[in-house]
């Protein structure tokens, strides 16, 4: 049976295992990915089964990890790099932005960099500083990168397969607080396209668009709204670069109202781009301005404040109400 109920982290683990089995050029690299299996156990057991040559504990240096992964890709490998936490990707930011993102264009297409950078991201796990951030906008603004984030185990499995198969660099944001959430994975299904959004709940009165950890919150909000007689459609965007604007547009043309939800700060966040573009595409359809629910313009707060900082059910419902009130 190819259908199993797996925690999201385990689905990623299975996906990496599959990739290592299928393609001898796939490598796993990162801090503590070997014997420990990663601090979230996403690479658990892989070094044991595939050896130190393919599952590589690296020195503690993120620029070095991404920089050498680029070199390995130039030699024909397909490195899947793990950044231990969101807040530790920044030492590698230069290699990602100036090299990984641009080298294909610099070479007029003559070289390809199939590198996946896996980043556990987002809050809600009561962690210390730098362990709860959502920096996806900082990658989506950069041409040459693709940015995706699964919200459930099946997408975790398939989107990681597709990211590894992609000839472009993919920044793969994993919703760490959903690592332990179980859902069904069919390892023999035919997956959807990597950068297409998916309607995960149908509705007619308003569209909620989210990705990664916020999809679950939006589904809960939609259910709660239903009880008040509001029919809310929920879109799982799945990809932040590119954004599937066609899918959002289609939904908004029906519901005429859009609320975008993400954990990242609202200011200069994904919601801004989506609001701007959807307003342009659907100017005569929108009954209300596109509203955004997200983090505040403040450093991610200490754990005891994160519940207030993170967009939760209530804040999403509040935005739904505000939108419907127009």
């Amino acid at each position, binding site marked *: 049976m190819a259908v199993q109920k797996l925690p999201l982290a385990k689905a990623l683990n299975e996906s990496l295992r599959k990739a290592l089995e299928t393609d001898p050029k796939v490598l796993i690299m990162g801090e503590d990915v070997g014997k420990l299996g990663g601090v979230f156990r996403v690479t658990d057991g892989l070094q044991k089964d595939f050896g130190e040559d393919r599952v590589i504990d690296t020195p*503690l240096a993120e620029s070095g990890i991404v920089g050498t992964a680029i070199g390995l890709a130039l030699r024909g490998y397909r490195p899947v790099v793990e950044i231990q936490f969101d807040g530790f990707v920044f030492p590698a930011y230069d290699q990602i932005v100036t090299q990984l993102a641009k080298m294909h264009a610099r070479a007029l297409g003559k070289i390809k960099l199939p590198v996946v950078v896996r980043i556990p991201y987002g809050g809600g796990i009561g962690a*210390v*500083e*730098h362990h709860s951030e959502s920096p996806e906008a900082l990658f989506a603004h950069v041409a040459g990168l693709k940015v995706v984030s699964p919200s459930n185990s099946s997408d975790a499995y398939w989107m990681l397969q597709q990211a590894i198969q992609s000839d472009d660099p993919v920044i793969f944001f994993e919703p760490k607080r959903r690592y332990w959430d179980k859902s069904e994975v069919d390892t023999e299904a035919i997956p959807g396209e990597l950068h297409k959004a998916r309607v995960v709940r149908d509705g007619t009165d308003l569209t909620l668009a989210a990705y990664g950890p916020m999809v679950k919150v939006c589904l809960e909000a939609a259910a709660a709204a239903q009880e008040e007689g509001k029919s809310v459609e929920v879109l799982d965007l799945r990809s932040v670069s590119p954004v599937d604007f066609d899918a959002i547009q289609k939904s908004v043309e029906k519901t005429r109202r859009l609320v975008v939800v993400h954990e990242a700060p609202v200011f200069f966040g994904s919601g801004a781009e989506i609001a701007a573009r959807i307003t342009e595409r659907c100017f005569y359809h929108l009954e209300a301005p596109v509203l955004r629910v997200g983090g505040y313009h403040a450093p991610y707060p200490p754990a005891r404040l994160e519940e207030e900082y993170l967009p939760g059910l209530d804040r999403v419902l*509040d935005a739904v109400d505000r939108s419907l009130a127009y």
Partner: protein
Amino acid sequence: MTVESTAARKPRRSSGTKRTASAGAKKPQSSEPQLVQLLTPEGERVQHPEYDIDLTAEELRGLYRDMVLTRRFDAEATALQRQGELGLWASLLGQEAAQIGSGRALRDDDYVFPTYREHGVAWCRGVDPTNLLGMFRGVNHGGWDPNSNNFHLYTIVIGSQTLHATGYAMGVAKDGADSAVIAYFGDGASSQGDVAESFTFSAVYNAPVVFFCQNNQWAISEPTEKQTRVPLYQRAQGFGFPGVRVDGNDVLACLAVTRSALERARRGEGPTLVEAFTYRMGAHTTSDDPTKYRADEERAAWEAKDPILRLKAYLENEGHADAAFFEELEAESEALGKRVREAVRAMPDPDHMAIFENVYADGHALVDEERAQFAAYQASFADSAPEEAK
């Protein structure tokens, strides 16, 4: 016509022959000196030609007390984490000598840039230990005033603080002061580009900074061999300043070597790298499970080198401390544990509005706007919303 075309070709190895990363690797010759030691694991005092120190019995007891209380505090914090009072704890168990020895080498006007594990150094600086717990409880990200004790906030992003220390030291030199600065970091951190850059900047500007690397043999699950193939203290040489390896479980040696390095900095002779060779006896943090990656025997071997036991043996053998001292200290330890426990349990959650505080020193229009919106939103619940909706 060109050299390339005529250069002799070495025969290729058959491409089937896999060269593993370390095959045939000849480790470069490194004249690896003994590490500086003044007190053997058995508690015997030994001499070192370059480093020595002459301490009174009272001073020796002081160091012992520091180590015991630090360990007690650390154990209490670990327990508090298990009880759910802290979200996380990074134990210094085993590294007391490295931290107390180096911490006690400092003058008040010296400045410390710690990682997240320097609870013993904080203790030496006079930082109230309960202050350290806020960030591990999740009520703040640090929050003590670094300038009260010349002890900077804990830095989590590996290696970053070495540059802050270097800049601070450049400022000390500019001021014409003769204070020194000390930057702590780990064996894993030695791989970060920032640490190398701090070596470059401090050497070029001859900054009065001591780089104190606690090589506790592990960076989470990775042993030091994953970071370097030669002893870490040797790193300094290639940047143009001295490096020295000290027995990190020997508080006297750590004190002597750090003091000497600090004096060197004060004399305007620039940076020094001290590698304290020690061991992380516990897990990386309370989130970690070291049984996944290291053998019990290793820990056992290091237990024989325990920094506290060896000073205790010395104190006893030399008659520098009597039973009353140890009893008193035991009581003091318990009191500290109790005080910490109570303080943590009493630690209030931060006010919600704290999210918006101190984002900027001079204010920011958007923060003001969001603060106001948040306050109104929060107020809306107080007024009307049913409790379940919260």
